[in-house]
């Protein structure tokens, strides 16, 4: 079954059933492996991508629901987002497996809330688990990218 998706600004046709989660289409069909599988039930945020600019969990997004929706993955940031620069500046990642999802949540936050408070960061980022516990640096890097002075 063919479906056409809008991924990182390009129309892409894939052969997959409409109930197939976007996550597996990205990873297995399109080779966009920056988006990670972590739990499959929208609990960990490792699979976070943007749908029309909003952070969503791609493991719970069947491709049949995404016609006409602009999807952006970590690859779509092209390594040029200030959040990515802040991640490198502060050496945020440890194992790194969750970081694509963290960055996609953080960039969606800053797009809507350019100067987030700690409460804004908690609200936007608490759906993304980091088992290495890099939370402190994630918070600091979001503030660094936003030009907000760290508390």
């Amino acid at each position, binding site marked *: 079954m063919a479906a056409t998706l809008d991924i990182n600004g390009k129309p892409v046709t894939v052969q*997959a*059933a409409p109930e*197939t*989660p976007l996550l*597996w289409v990205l*990873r*297995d*069909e399109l*080779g966009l*492996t*920056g*988006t*990670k*599988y*972590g*739990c*499959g*039930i929208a*609990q*960990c945020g*490792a699979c976070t991508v943007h749908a029309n600019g909003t952070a969503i969990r791609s493991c719970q997004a069947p491709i049949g629901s995404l016609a006409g929706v602009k999807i952006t*993955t*970590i*690859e779509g*940031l092209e*390594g040029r987002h200030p959040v*990515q620069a802040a*991640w*490198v500046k502060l*050496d*945020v*990642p*440890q*194992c*790194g*497996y*969750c*970081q*694509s999802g963290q*960055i996609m949540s953080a960039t969606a936050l800053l797009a809507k809330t350019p100067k987030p408070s700690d409460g804004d*960061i*908690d*609200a936007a*980022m*608490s*759906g*993304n*688990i*980091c*088992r*290495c*516990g*890099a*939370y*402190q*640096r*994630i*918070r600091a890097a979001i503030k660094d990218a936003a030009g907000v002075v760290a508390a």
Partner: protein
Amino acid sequence: MNAPFKALAKLRPSRREMIVVSAAAAGGALLVGCSPADILSIGADNKHFGPFGPFLRIDADGTVTVVSKHIEFGQGSHASLAAMVAEELDADWDKLKVAQAGANAKVYANLDQGAQGTGGSSAIHNSWDQLRKVGAATRAMFVTAAADRWKVHANEISVANGVVAHPSGQSATFADLVANAAKVKPPGSPKLKDPKAYTLIGTNRVRRKDSLAKATGTARFTQDVHLPNMLTAMVAHSPRFGGKVKSFDADAAKKIPGVVDVFKIPSGVAVTAQNTFAARQGRDALKVEWDDDKAETRGSDAILAAYHDLASGKTAATDKLKWQPFDSHGVGVAPGAGKVVEVAYDFPFLAHAPMEPMNCVAEIGGGKNKLTSGSQIPTLDQLNTGMIVGALPGSVEIETLFAGGSFGRRANFQSDYAAECVHIAKHVGGGRPVKLVWTREDDMTGGYYRPMVHHAVRVTLGADGYPAHWRHRIVSQSVMKGSPMPSKGVDESAVEGVSGSPYLKATPVVDAQAILPDSPIPVLWWRSVGATHTAFVMEHTIDQLARAAGKDPIDYRRALYTKAGADRHLVALSLALEKAGLNPAPGYTRGVAAHESFGSVVVQIAEVKLDGGVPKVGRVVTAIDCGTAISPDQVAAQMEGGTCFGLSAALFGQITLKDGVVDQKNFDAYRVLRMNEAPHVETYIVPSGAHPSGVGEPGTPVIAPAVANAILAITGKPTTSLPFVKA
């Protein structure tokens, strides 16, 4: 301290394994007098490693690449290992690269452990002399090459940032000199720098090399491997540990588009498919009947009750299940008539739950035996693979990738998930790549947990208020049981931290014993191993003893450290107190804890408040003595992350079983720490020129008792079981 991993040094393949190895080697006599590393590297392709040896490559364009024998799974050791070489080589740090070594037990053995592997917070410790010598020897080769070319004395030549220079004004890059340097005989015992001359080690210039790849989604994990013609596999496992396949019906599974095959393997029923989603659907469509004859059918409550009965003496020990003494002295002396403090603690099973669920890629057959995986102990993975496919362990090729966390899970004697993948790939045959993918549910219900543990402690205080008699009983499964190197005495991984405690050293009479009952539930080391429970027991008990004695818990510790000669504890405690300042943040109460593990002493002062009975942790001041800190920033990162890992388990972590079936299948039920619950950790490093010790694990075990001690100060009530927040 890192007893279980140190035990790898004693790794000898068992008789059965030896038969396989010997048969494959076509002559057991070959093996006489060989070291384990020799045996395990038989069949290895001991390819030429280049003029600078197996740890360093310098290309014609001058690019310097340090080869890491240790896996990078978050702990940051790639950067610090590279810094050891770069410092002595005087390479340009900013341009230096790190590559991951393949599997070779002889060349890349962990010098603390004998086999190739990463664990016991030993990557930096065991490499410190080895890699500095690599850098220094190579530097000498470049200096000699330059001296020959310029006809000057070698001792007039300097090297900085990859440029070799002479006061006459002549200079050359590594690229200019590498062809000549490669021909110089490396010095046998190169002179190492005086640490005072370090320009890289100990500075915040030692930064991670993988942050950019990990911030752009380009870092390659096993989950990301796609090879031509690759199959993706999932396995239906018994819902009960020790269960076996009785029968299965694959009809529905085989009808799923994309499913290729369904077959039985030792650990369950495997489904191979064209992609992950099809494999998942196929696996879910399987109907399997399980034989629970030898399975664990008890619930965790029943197991814990059995532990209590052992500790209380209600269940007597037997010839097979004995109490084993450790660290005891003065036994037989009567406890005296002082105040008695009696307390018992329960700790649940814990899942490691790294972000990347277990997975492995294997290519078996057609002249190939290869794993691509986040291999934590490649030597064991080689051994287990060799046994399954009938090949020499050293001939099994392993490409080790970044792993999405491990926390101990990827290092086990059975190589459980890797072996499972090898069985599937062997069935598929022809060297066709198979990627085994475990779902989160597979990972969380798959066992290899931190054991459930019970401690019963009775301390009689002397007239001075300090412990005069300490009775300690520990009930736990043994991590080391069934390993190729079972412990002769008590399994140290179950008692370390009680064993070796300065408080016991300072106590005149100690009667400490452990009993290690068995179960089909597989258990494993979990970041900081024994300290995950022993640090809690010792540190929380000390605060209760201080209260019983009417003394300040910090003064109480200082007196005991002084008596025990625990100078590093004293220094770290003072540093933490100095940095913490006088008062906690408004509304918060402080708790203190200290623990030595993996050669490092960590002291934490945690500021805690109770929010509807739930502990909220704010500022955590951490002091660590880890010897020479190669990357202070990464030491801090490990204290931050280790604290979160320990706090996550302390607040929420527990795996429970009902009738042998694990209750928690995913992060909805196995709650872990999130952004809004994370503390702010400040790290202060005790200045030291000593040999570096561990940092990956020592940051984990201290936070739970620090929080419990704060709660004790707030409520007057001790914490007798974890997690703090029951589901």
